[in-house]
């Protein structure tokens, strides 16, 4: 068997959740390589993908240190099964068309930017340092995806329609951004984690502003999907991991 087993303290789980968010979304963006609608956007998508993969590496390394069982970034990324992945359902949703990708990026970045800004004051020095870098990156992702959502929403009837559809499709995955469980509670209490409830107003205001400029209507908050944080994913993640992990599963333990 090529899978590892991770001993998850609250800190390990908390950090893995963020690492998985970053890796899965970064991987999704990297799937665009060679397929972007224009060369300038090819560059931008790769930039955002690289930022997220970079965040993932720092976070996995830290999770490995916190676990102290000798798992490095690659062991954690490549040798955990789907049910051990703890990312948000939002970030694993398939790229779809460019509108889906940009709306997904907006919905995530509008959360991650203030999240990492707040995390800069975490009592955990490593997380605070990671946050300082990630915040700058996510501010760019937010700006970039917001510009595109406005352009697409207020572009042609076709682009408006596609963007509206993307929004409807992805909205049910936004509730999970603000979910907490006992893992979060203990770390919030300890001043290590941020209470996501405190970010909700900022998130809504940011999204509402962008959608307004994009001539799009903010969907009503209906039933919200969840499960990613505890490893109950959609069917999409398994296919992503199949590709991501194939080499390490084929020759486990090699140096690359």
């Amino acid at each position, binding site marked *: 068997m090529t899978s590892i087993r991770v001993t998850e303290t609250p800190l390990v789980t908390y950090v893995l959740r963020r690492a998985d968010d970053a*890796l899965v979304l970064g*991987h999704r963006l*990297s*799937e665009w*390589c*060679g*397929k*972007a*609608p*224009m*060369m*300038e*956007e*090819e*560059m931008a998508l*790769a*930039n955002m*993908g*690289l930022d997220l*993969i*970079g965040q*993932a*590496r720092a976070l*996995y390394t830290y999770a490995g240190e916190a676990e102290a069982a000798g798992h490095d*970034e*690659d062991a954690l*990324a*490549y040798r955990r099964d789907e049910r051990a992945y703890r990312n948000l359902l939002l970030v694993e949703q398939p790229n779809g*068309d*460019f509108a889906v990708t940009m709306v997904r990026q907006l919905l995530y970045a509008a959360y991650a930017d203030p999240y990492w800004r707040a995390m800069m004051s975490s009592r955990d020095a490593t997380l605070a340092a990671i946050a300082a870098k990630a915040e700058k990156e996510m501010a760019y992702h937010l700006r970039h995806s917001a510009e595109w959502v*406005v*352009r*697409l929403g*207020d*572009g*042609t009837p*076709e*682009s408006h329609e*596609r963007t509206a559809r993307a929004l409807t499709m992805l909205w049910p995955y936004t509730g999970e951004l603000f979910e907490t469980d006992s893992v979060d509670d203990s770390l919030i209490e300890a001043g290590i984690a941020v209470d996501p409830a405190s970010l909700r107003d900022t998130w809504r205001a940011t999204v509402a502003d962008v959608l307004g400029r994009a001539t799009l209507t903010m969907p009503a908050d209906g039933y919200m999907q969840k499960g990613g944080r505890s490893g109950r994913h959609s069917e999409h993640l398994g296919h992503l991991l199949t*590709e*991501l992990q*194939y*080499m*390490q599963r084929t*020759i486990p333990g*090699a*140096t*690359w």
Partner: protein
Amino acid sequence: AALLQRFQERIDAEERIEPNDWMPEAYRRTLVRQISQHAHSEIIGMQPEGNWITRAPSLRRKAALLAKVQDECGHGLYLYAAAETLGVSREEMVDQLLAGKAKYSSIFNYPTLTWADIGAIGWLVDGAAIMNQIPLCRCSYGPYARAMIRVCKEESFHQRQGYEIMLTLCRGTAEQKEMAQDALNRWWWPCLMMFGPPDSASQHTDTSTRWKIKRFTNDELRRKFVDATVPQAHFLGLTVPDPELRFDEATGHWVHGAIDWDEFKQVVAGNGPCNTQRLERRRKTEEDGAWVREAARAFADKNSRRKAAVATAA
């Protein structure tokens, strides 16, 4: 004729020709062809390596590969911009590529079958590209020369990275080393072909040399490449797939066996393993992105009308 003479004098004096300077039409045409082919190669060249981004075997390699492919896109952009200074638009050049009328480097019509191919491409393909490109940093046409300086800097970084992938594989498990050898076996000959037909059969060299667009012949560059690369292969512990390869003590050069120019001609003619796939992929990308570009234009138009309306009202 006086203009032409003055032009040749500037060239001979190693002066740089700039966009607004007078230049012979044939010089302009040669450059447009060469620069746009080079730009297309960067863009098409994203595909074989892009094929392994989602399957890269470590996060470090994944990030490096994504960054590398991004650099190639960047090179494409500088080069299209350099060609645009000669009065041809990026759209025209891309249309020519998609119509199958423009060439790009044939090496990208070979498939990447294993992870080791990513190492081999960096080491060999980028290595060969650099041999071709370093002299272009002193090309007589200013914008091209300046673009090449930047491109070469990044390419040599990629080349080292590729070599390091090979080194890691060769120091790894038996399976990894075998993968590396296999990649060398498949990429070696196509890389030698990257320098183009032998001097005896080459068409463009003469005027290109006189105008200092080109400073070495195909065979000279190929020899430099072989001399630089064979010792690296030996250091890796790999065997160059050429039983006739030998070191000539007299000249101090490595001498390779005969190149299968038939294969080269077939690939150039569109019959390489991936020619169709590469162009289809590029066409599909253009097609899939059409609605996005259209939306961006529509939005920009609306916006400038809005601004005009505000300006009029004020």
